[in-house]
C-alpha cells in the first residue's frame, strides 16, 4: 500500500513538468502545421498560375521522379516551382508527427524512463524506414 502511495506522489511531482513539456509539444505541432500550410498555400498560388488547364486524375500515372524524392522536392522548391513548394509543404506536414516522436524520445530520456526511450526509438525507426527506406 505504501509503495503505491509513494509512486502516486512521485507521479504528482512529475506531472507538472510533464504538463509543461506537453504544452511545448502542442505548440511545436501547431507551428509545424502552420508552416506546412503556408508552403502549400504559396506553392498552390504558383501552381494555379502555371497550370490553367486541369490535370486528368482519372487515370493513375504516378508522379514524376523529381516530385517523389526529398532531394528532387527541395530542388523544385528552391526553383520556386509551384508543385515543388506544395510537396515541400507536405513533407513538413508529414514531419510534424515525426517531430512529436523525436520529442517524446527526449521527454522520456529526461524522465530517465529508458524502457520508453527504447519503445519510442522503435517507433521512430519504423517511421524512418517508411520515409527513407523506399528506394
Amino acid at each position, binding site marked *: 500500500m505504501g509503495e503505491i502511495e509513494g509512486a502516486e506522489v512521485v507521479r504528482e511531482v512529475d506531472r507538472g513538468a510533464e504538463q509543461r513539456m506537453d504544452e511545448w*509539444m502542442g505548440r511545436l*505541432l501547431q507551428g509545424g502545421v502552420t508552416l506546412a*500550410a503556408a508552403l502549400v498555400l504559396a506553392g498552390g498560388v504558383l501552381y494555379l498560375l502555371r497550370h490553367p488547364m486541369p490535370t486528368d486524375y*482519372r487515370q*493513375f500515372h504516378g*508522379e514524376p521522379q523529381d516530385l517523389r524524392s526529398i532531394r528532387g522536392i527541395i530542388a523544385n522548391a528552391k526553383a520556386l516551382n509551384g508543385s515543388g513548394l*506544395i510537396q515541400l509543404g*507536405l513533407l513538413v506536414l508529414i514531419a510534424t508527427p515525426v517531430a512529436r516522436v523525436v520529442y517524446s524520445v527526449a521527454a522520456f530520456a529526461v524522465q530517465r524512463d529508458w524502457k520508453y526511450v527504447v519503445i519510442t526509438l522503435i517507433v521512430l525507426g519504423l517511421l524512418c524506414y*517508411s520515409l527513407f527506406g523506399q528506394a
Partner: protein
Amino acid sequence: MNTAEFSALIFVGSCLAGFLGALTGLGGGVVIVPMLTLLFRVDIKYAIGAALISVIATSSGAAAAYVREGYSNVRVGMFLEIATTIGAICGAVIAIYLRASVIAVIFGSVLLYSAFLSYRQKPHARGQVETGRLARWLQMDGSYPTANGREAYHVRNVPQGFGLMYIAGVLSGLLGIGSGAVKVLAMDQAMKLPFKVSTTTSNFMIGVTAAASAGIYLSRGYVDPGLAMPVMLGVLSGSLLGARVLTGATVKVLRIVFAVVIAALAVEMILNGLSGRI
C-alpha cells in the same frame, strides 16, 4: 472547368469534410476518398494519398489541444504506435498490389462497419479494473481530470490492444483513413481506458500512423501536389471552423446525420467497386 475552379470545388468539399470531422470525430479521410473518387472521378490511389495528408493535417492541428489538457496517455499511445506503424507500412505496401476496385469494396465495407461502431459506441462499464501484467511492466496506468479532480485508472489486455492496433494501422495505410474508431474500440473496450482518454490518445496516435503510410505513398508517386493542395487547405480550414462551433446537442444530431451519410457513401463505394467503375 479550369484548374482554379476544380481546385476551388475540392477546397469547398474538403472544408465540409474537415468541419464535420471536427464536430463528430469521424475523420476527414472517410469523406475525402469517396468525395474524390465518386464525385470528381479521381483515381482511388491519388484519392488515398490526398486523404492521408488530410488525416495528418487534422491530427497534428487538433492533437495539440488534447495533449495540453492532460487527457491522453502518452505511454499507451507510444507503445501501441509500434503496432499501428507496422500495420500502416504493411497496408501501404499491400495497396500497391491491389486493384482499385478491390480497394473500393474494402473501403466501403470498413466504412459501413466504422460508422456502425461510432454510432453504437457506449463506453465500457465503469468498475474495478486490475492492472494487467504487461500494463504494469510498461507502467501504463494513469489518471485524468474529472469533476472531482484527477482520477486514477488501470490498464489491461495490452496484447489484445496491440493486435487491434495493428489492424487499425493496416486499414489506415490501405484506405487512407485515420482508423480512429478502431483505435478507440481497442483502448476503450479491450484495454479499459476511460472513454475520454481513449479518444484523445487515439487522436494523438492517428497522425503518426498516417505519416508512416504517407511517406510510402509520397515516395511511390501517389501524392499529387495539385490534388493534395486544395484538400489539405480545405480540411484545415474546415476543422478550425468546426472546433469553434462545438455545442453538445448539435453534435448528437450531427453524429446521426453523419453516420447515415457515411453509410450511403459506403454503399456507393461498394457498388462502384463491384461494377468496376472505380
